[in-house]
């Protein structure tokens, strides 16, 4: 067995990635692993003597992927060398926490890396993260908003941008419940920036006194918990991918805030969201889990004329410059914002 002392580590990203992939792809393929195309950074381990690839670990933003070591180096500390470097890369890049998905059988390996399990679906997948302290701090901060004995509802919104459809959903929840927690998706990949979306949601629900708007986080519909949500090719999203996010909500966020109902709109247009609702219901309520079930209430989508109101329709109208039509679909605060930011051109 070769000692891990004879290993040289390197980090490849950006322009260097393409040529490195020529070496990585066959290395992973030989070990029945697919090379994830979204990886932006690879830590590579080569033998110092003859520069053979001995192991790799990739980062897709804050998610560690494609971890693999060559057979001759198992048990030789190589995995911990890779771990140190890939964790340093992730934290240096500015991420507060790092995540990874793994087969149930590999949990032990990654526990050795200092990762802890957030949720696991036995026989399928486990979702782990690095900074348990940061996560506990986040949950603790949420707990400050908890109201004992109150009927508590919750809604997770991307609100790109906030429409009358969103407004209707929040209003209904606000009427049903004593208190409603709204979480905004933090990921900044939408037409409207996270900060703008947050501002418009806050303005749009300001009159509803029992509604609290929370900032998004890595732990709720994020690149880490639900990568499929942000994919262009939404048909590729499978059940497992959204199960983790649903279980995160049920196990941690709902208990912290005493949430017993989650509200979503029915989805006649968008396939991902439609499938997401089905899976969401299963993992929030019927799936066996040691956390209390959360009821999923699907409300009929609000319509304007014959069509349902959707944020994607609003974005199309912005593109077409049809501001009059937008006016009917969004609250005044959202309309003002769109007019101000999109009419110069």
């Amino acid at each position, binding site marked *: 067995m070769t000692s891990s002392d004879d290993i040289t580590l390197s980090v490849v990203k950006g322009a260097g990635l393409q040529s490195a992939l020529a070496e990585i792809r066959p290395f992973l393929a030989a070990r029945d692993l697919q090379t994830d195309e979204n990886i932006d950074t690879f830590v590579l381990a080569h033998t110092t003597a003859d520069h053979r690839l001995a192991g790799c670990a990739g980062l897709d933003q804050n998610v560690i992927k494609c971890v693999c070591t060559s057979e001759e180096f198992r048990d030789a500390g190589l995995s911990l*060398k890779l771990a*140190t470097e890939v964790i340093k890369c992730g934290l240096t890049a500015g991420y507060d926490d790092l995540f990874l998905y793994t087969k149930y059988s590999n949990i032990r390996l990654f526990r050795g890396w200092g990762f802890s399990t957030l949720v696991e679906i036995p026989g399928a997948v486990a979702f782990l993260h690095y900074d348990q302290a940061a996560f506990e701090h986040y949950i603790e901060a949420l707990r400050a908003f908890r109201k004992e004995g109150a009927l508590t509802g919750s809604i997770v919104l991307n609100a790109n941008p906030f429409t009358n459809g969103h407004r209707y959903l929040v209003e209904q929840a606000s009427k049903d419940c004593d208190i409603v927690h709204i979480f905004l998706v933090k990921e900044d990949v939408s037409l409207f920036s996270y900060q703008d979306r947050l501002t418009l949601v806050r303005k749009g629900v300001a009159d509803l006194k029992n509604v609290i708007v929370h900032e998004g986080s890595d732990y709720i519909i994020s690149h880490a918990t639900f990568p499929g949500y942000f994919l262009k090719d939404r048909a590729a999203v499978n059940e497992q991918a959204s199960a983790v996010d649903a279980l995160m909500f049920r196990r941690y966020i709902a208990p912290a805030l005493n949430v017993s109902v989650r509200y979503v709109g029915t989805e006649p247009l968008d396939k991902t969201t439609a499938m997401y609702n089905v899976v969401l219901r299963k993992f929030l309520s019927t799936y066996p889990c040691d956390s209390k079930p959360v009821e999923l209430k699907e409300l009929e989508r609000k319509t304007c004329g014959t069509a349902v109101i959707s944020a994607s329709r609003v974005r199309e109208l912005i593109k077409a410059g049809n501001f009059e039509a937008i006016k009917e679909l969004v609250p005044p605060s959202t309309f003002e914002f769109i007019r101000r930011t999109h009419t110069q051109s």
Partner: protein
Amino acid sequence: MKVIQKGMAGTLESSDVLVVVSPNDADDIKLSLQSKVEKQYGNAIRKAISETLAKCGVTGAKVDVRDQGALDCVIRARVEAAVYRAADEKNVKFGGQS
């Protein structure tokens, strides 16, 4: 020293420790420790960390420590190095000789 950025030192390899020191809005030390030998040495490790932070004059910081069975001197060294990096301080004052 004032912690102004994330500073890391150490590794996850056996007998070493990975220390991440980051800024903290509050003026206190938020320490999280994971150790293979928490049961036997948890208190000694915490003492080594807090003494080292005090020696460096750090009063506000988040400190994440992943211990893989490091000796006391290694823990002190890694915390020190992470603090200097987190404070972006290049001019190291090594203490008096033993």
